[in-house]
């Protein structure tokens, strides 16, 4: 110490500081090593993924992702495509139709859509709330379906959650909605006989399937008697003389398709190779050393690395382009079908205005029904055909062909009536114009909905002051 020149003593202070910092940094390195080793041991003994799963489930609140044709953002389909208003004239979808957001929003979105009102039936709640299985068990399926939608609102405030797909005691996958079970029973299949991998699709198929309300009591049924394809389902509906509504312009007996995601997926190559919905929409995720299923159910385009890249060793960008390419082509066919159908409806209206006979219009109306059903089969399914691009293209092609055939017949009828062709198309270039053309009072509908949300719906969320303690559950010996 004394050997150093006086003005070099500061070096020894630096030495001390360096030693202290070294201890600190080495301590941090040591602690990360110990931590990461510990987490790998924990994972292998007793992995407890549940809090992590629930966090990812809550992440369905995120609406920031927009892909080219979809994503989680709120899209007003009627705004983007006013033709839809005409296609659904006389039906509630002409009032309001938005892209579905994450499961987090199931309850809030069904409340705020203009499609629900005083006339809505309780069956509409079936897929929206985690309390539905419990309610159905308490009051029976038929009674649940037959109640009014508004009457059930205060009891169904919790959105889609764990109990929709899982058993409460053992966390196993469980189908909780009777319509799916009953549909398979019709085919001679038991829900308990399906494999685990098939269950990873079936819990989604509970809701992401085509359905209709049967009879006076609006009992929920899946129309799978003849099979899953669009033609087989159409045959079934024809055989029971079923229509969802009569078109306001063309008076055609129409069918509405509702998101046949499961059925359409079965026709694609990925289902053929044994994939389930969960393989792409709920891939595996790891946090630390714990591997669990990502419950942020979303577009795989927002997580290509964990979904497509598991089996397809391409770059992310290439796969995204592959998806967009298929969706673009389906979208092109979809647009053709819509354009032709709009013309068909309006030309049919023109024929009726010129006093066409019912028997001469029957064939036309049936073609319009079949065409629009096929267009809607692909249109209402999520993903713009990506679940089965080839089948989607085929279905849309038949829609275009049938709508064209209808227009051919209409041309004959109109000519016979002395009408000058082509029929003048109204200006339906925007959502507002189209809704006005079909006679909707949007102001009143919006006001009614706002009033409803403020008065009735707001009360639904108020928790009762006196909390009822839950009944003690008898522990079963297993």
């Amino acid at each position: 110490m004394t050997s150093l020149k006086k003005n070099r003593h500061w070096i020894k202070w630096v030495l001390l500081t360096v030693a202290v910092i070294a201890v600190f940094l080495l301590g941090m390195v040591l602690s990360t090593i110990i931590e990461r080793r510990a987490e790998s041991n924990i994972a292998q003994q007793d992995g407890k993924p549940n809090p992590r799963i629930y966090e990812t489930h809550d992440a369905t609140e995120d609406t920031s992702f927009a892909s080219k044709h979809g994503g989680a953002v709120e899209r007003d389909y009627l705004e983007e495509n006013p033709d839809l208003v005409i296609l659904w004239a006389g039906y509630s979808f002409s009032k309001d139709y938005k892209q579905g957001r994450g499961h987090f929003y199931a309850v809030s979105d069904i409340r705020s859509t203009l499609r629900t009102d005083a006339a809505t039936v309780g069956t509409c709640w079936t897929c929206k709330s985690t309390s539905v299985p419990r309610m159905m068990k308490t009051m029976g399926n038929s009674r649940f379906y037959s109640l009014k939608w508004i009457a059930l609102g205060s009891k169904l405030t919790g959105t889609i959650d764990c109990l929709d797909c899982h058993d409460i005691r053992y966390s196993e996958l469980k189908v909780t909605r009777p319509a799916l079970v009953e549909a398979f029973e019709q085919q001679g299949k038991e829900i308990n006989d399906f494999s685990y991998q098939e269950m990873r699709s079936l819990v989604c198929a509970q809701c992401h399937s085509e359905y209709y309300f049967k009879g006076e009591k609006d009992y929920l049924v899946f129309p799978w008697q003849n099979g899953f394809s669009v033609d087989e389902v159409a045959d079934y509906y024809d055989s029971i003389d079923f229509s969802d509504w009569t078109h306001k312009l063309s008076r055609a007996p129409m069918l509405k398709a509702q998101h046949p995601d499961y059925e359409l997926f079965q026709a694609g190559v990925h289902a053929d190779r044994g994939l389930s919905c969960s393989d792409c929409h709920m891939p595996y995720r790891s946090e630390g050393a714990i591997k669990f299923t990502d419950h942020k159910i979303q577009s795989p385009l927002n997580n290509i690395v964990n979904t497509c890249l598991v089996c397809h060793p391409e770059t992310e960008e290439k796969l995204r382009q592959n998806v967009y390419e298929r969706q673009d082509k389906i979208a092109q066919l979809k647009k053709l079908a819509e354009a032709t159908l709009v013309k068909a409806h309006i030309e049919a209206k023109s024929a009726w205005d010129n006093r066409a006979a019912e028997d001469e219009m029957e064939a036309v109306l049936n073609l319009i029904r079949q065409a629009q059903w096929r267009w809607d089969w692909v249109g209402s399914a999520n993903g713009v055909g990506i679940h089965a691009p080839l089948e989607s293209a085929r279905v849309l092609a038949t829609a275009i062909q049938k709508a064209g055939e209808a227009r051919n017949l209409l041309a004959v009828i109109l000519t016979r009536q002395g009408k000058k062709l082509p029929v003048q198309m109204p200006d339906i270039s925007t959502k507002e114009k189209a809704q006005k053309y079909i006679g909707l009072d949007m102001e009143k509908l919006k006001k009614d909905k706002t009033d409803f949300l403020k008065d009735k719906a707001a009360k639904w969320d108020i928790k009762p002051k006196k909390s009822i303690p839950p009944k003690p559950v008898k522990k079963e010996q297993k």
Partner: protein
Amino acid sequence: MIITKKERKGILIIRRYLTVFFSCIAIALFFLVISLSNAPSYIKDEPDACINCHVMVPQYVSWEKDVHKLGTTCNDCHVPHNSLVDHFWFKIKDGLRHATVFSLRWEPQVIRIKPAGIRVVQNNCIRCHEKLVKPGIFSMTAGQTGIIGGDRKCWDCHRDVPHGRVQGLASSSLVRAPGQDSKKKD
């Protein structure tokens, strides 16, 4: 403030002891880090060294199930073998990168090989399978010109080798990996 000569001497003595104390702690911690992180295992080529980090378990498991388990270790493919210098220099570079990323929890959800790593593996494929692949008696099969000096990789076609077709977390269930203190394999 003015310090007396006696006080200054005291401070300097304390400083000396503190420096020695912290230096000893630092040296001790250093050896602890070396030992707990299994650092010496990286000098050799045992595959178990690679699963010191649990994120590599799917790759370890897929290698175990592949035919390459019989004669190759991780380093036989993933570290250059053309010269000792290249061998250890690559190990140091790559190893420090792995260690940093893992310690700071920067590892991505899906781990994919880097361009430098791709070059190393490709060269090692050729190194072992040279007779089959270089121009000669056995090399009538397609693709040689693409492989040697071209941009095609052996695993563009031989996709199963050795980590299987299914990548990422879906490729293995949560398997046990040999722990820090166990010499036994599971």
